[in-house]
């Protein structure tokens, strides 16, 4: 009884939640295997693959040569042999070496063989940010995958969702691109001990509200939630929709929300142009029931390669204060003292005060 209560309320972080999803999925299904550079090394992909090697051994946990393009091909081949590979790249950028296997092959395999063989693979991509990682280790790039029919793309923002959605992704019969933001790994939420699924393709109302709708995903949901707290000080009651899945995009809850609030701000976790926000806004404004009084708006990462130096990098990322400033614009309201009063809320180049580099 006590354990149950304890489990119900236990707080674990996002990395631990990922780890739990992997452990439980591997226990449940012998065909689940984990592969990628460093999955069995002392750091265990920021702790996310802890204990897997110890529990499941070398026949189910595979370190890999630095051969990103082939690795995806191996995973596809493994899946044709009835395995369910979960592979991981420690930075999104490394996946750019394997776009042929992901987009030309994995995404189309089931379709082009007319439904005879599906490809149940999960590709974990970790988005870097901060500590001067610079232009080649800080890209988000969700939009490169979200536009491809045949892929599913998920990007959970809490430990709770991460566990449930990774379990769903592994159980899924299709190739799933699973985005993790490095700054989310150290964020905590209540996560049940049990094996549970969060469905792919369903967004979530992270906070109910009535004055303005904020739509976001991944780490930007953290900033959006902080923004909604700040906004309370100005008597603004924001509704926050966490996309969770980027393909297929779950647009109805957004439509419902904006029909209520008449104001939409999409906070993009990637570059501002040609991103997730463009599709969300277009889905809203081309919707058959679109109410023309709705104001739509977006913020996103500055359209530049991300510089290493913190003096410039911090200018690239919108934070909760920027979000509030944008909302002040669309509400046509002045939030007095916003940036001075909430300057401690401003994002820096580390995810939290305990972080001292280098990754």
């Amino acid at each position, binding site marked *: 009884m006590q354990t149950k209560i304890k489990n119900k309320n236990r707080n674990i972080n996002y990395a631990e939640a990922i780890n739990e999803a992997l452990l439980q999925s591997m226990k449940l299904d012998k065909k689940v295997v984990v592969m990628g550079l460093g999955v069995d090394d002392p750091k265990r992909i920021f702790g996310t693959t802890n204990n897997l090697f110890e529990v499941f051994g070398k026949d189910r946990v595979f370190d890999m040569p630095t051969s990103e393009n082939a690795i995806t091909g*191996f995973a*596809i081949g493994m*899946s*044709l042999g009835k395995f369910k590979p979960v592979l991981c790249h420690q930075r999104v950028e490394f996946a750019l070496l394997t776009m042929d296997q992901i987009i*030309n092959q994995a995404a189309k395999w089931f*379709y082009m063989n*007319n*439904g005879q063989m*599906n490809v149940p693979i999960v590709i974990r991509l970790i988005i870097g940010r901060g500590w001067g990682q610079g232009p080649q280790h800080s890209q988000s790039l969700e939009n490169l995958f979200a536009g491809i029919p045949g892929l599913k793309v998920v990007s959970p923002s809490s430990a709770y969702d991460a566990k449930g959605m990774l379990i769903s992704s592994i159980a899924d*019969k299709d190739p799933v691109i699973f985005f993790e933001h490095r700054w989310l790994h150290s964020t905590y939420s209540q996560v049940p001990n049990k094996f549970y699924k969060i469905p792919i393709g369903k967004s979530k109302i992270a906070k109910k509200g009535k004055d303005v709708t904020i739509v976001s995903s991944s780490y930007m949901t953290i900033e959006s939630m902080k923004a909604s707290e700040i906004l309370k000080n100005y008597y603004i009651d924001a509704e926050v929709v966490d996309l969770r899945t980027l393909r297929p995009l779950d647009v109805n809850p957004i439509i419902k929300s904006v029909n209520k609030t008449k104001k939409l701000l999409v906070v993009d976790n990637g570059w501002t142009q040609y991103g997730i926000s463009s599709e969300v806004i277009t889905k809203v404004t081309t919707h058959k029931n679109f109410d023309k009084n709705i104001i739509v708006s977006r913020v996103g990462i500055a359209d530049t390669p991300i510089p290493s130096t913190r003096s410039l990098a911090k200018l690239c990322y919108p934070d909760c204060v920027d979000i509030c400033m944008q909302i002040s614009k669309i509400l046509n309201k002045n939030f007095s003292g916003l940036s001075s009063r909430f300057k401690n809320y401003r994002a820096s180049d580390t995810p939290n005060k305990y972080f001292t580099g280098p990754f």
Partner: protein
Amino acid sequence: MNKKTKFNLLYSMIRMRMVEERISSEYSNQQMRCPVHLSVGQEAISSGICLNLKDKDQVFSAHRSHFHYLAKGGNLKQMISELFGKETGCAGGKGGSMHLIDIKAGLIAAVPIVGSTIPIGVGLAWANKLNRSNKVVVIFFGEGATEEGVFYESINFAALHNLPILFVCENNYYSVYSNIKNRQPTNRKISNVSKSMGVESYRMNGNKVEEIFTKTQKMIHSIRKNNKPILIELSTYRVLEHCGPNNDDHLNYRNKKELKRWLNNCPIEKYKEHLLKQKVLSNEELKKVYQKIDKEISQSFDFAKKSKFPKKDKLFKYIYAD
């Protein structure tokens, strides 16, 4: 080698050749509306190798896939229907000539992105090894594919993990119109590169079907027994144009002498004469072979022509399995 095997090798080659000759002659009717990469001239390789395979063994191919499909026992009617874009095609019309598949027969996949099936084949062999299924995976590719980085990444992994794979490089000296000398250093052998990377490797004449059969029989046996990959590089020649139904030698991209030498080196003609001389079969039996195959082909084309195109409701089918 027994008579039956010799007969089968010849039969397989003649059938392949006749299938593609029919495709070639019917292509201008504009009913097979998809790019076709014909393999005429390269019959000996897939015939010689695949006769050694078990049903459960698995084959991967690329853009030039017809012979691999046929040699592994792929269904002819479904192949022709696929070229016609019909719902009875092996991929329901969704793939065309460049995406042949017959899972039951063990032709797992063919794709037109050069080199891209290689790591996938390696991955399946890895699964096979972990599953202890004792299957052999055969991956066919051209010498052009050995210029893609993924070839080396795949070879490295197969050697590292001792995977049961036969890599088959059909070196026909051309990638589209480009001679190998413009793409790879002269005097270097692909099989030497793979050997230096840790994979047992051999070179072979790709137009001698019996030799191919005999040598690869031992290799496949050894792969199955020892769980270790082998690579073979076979020299051969494509007779028709790179893509399309015709001959393109008026474009003069191939040296006249070279061309003549290879055309005189037809894998079928020589072998046929040899078997006739050896009395493995008579002229009469040979005639019957031609008739039988001709009939099979005609039936397959009739089947394809009579089959229906996939309907609208199929467009969004099978994008996702879940």
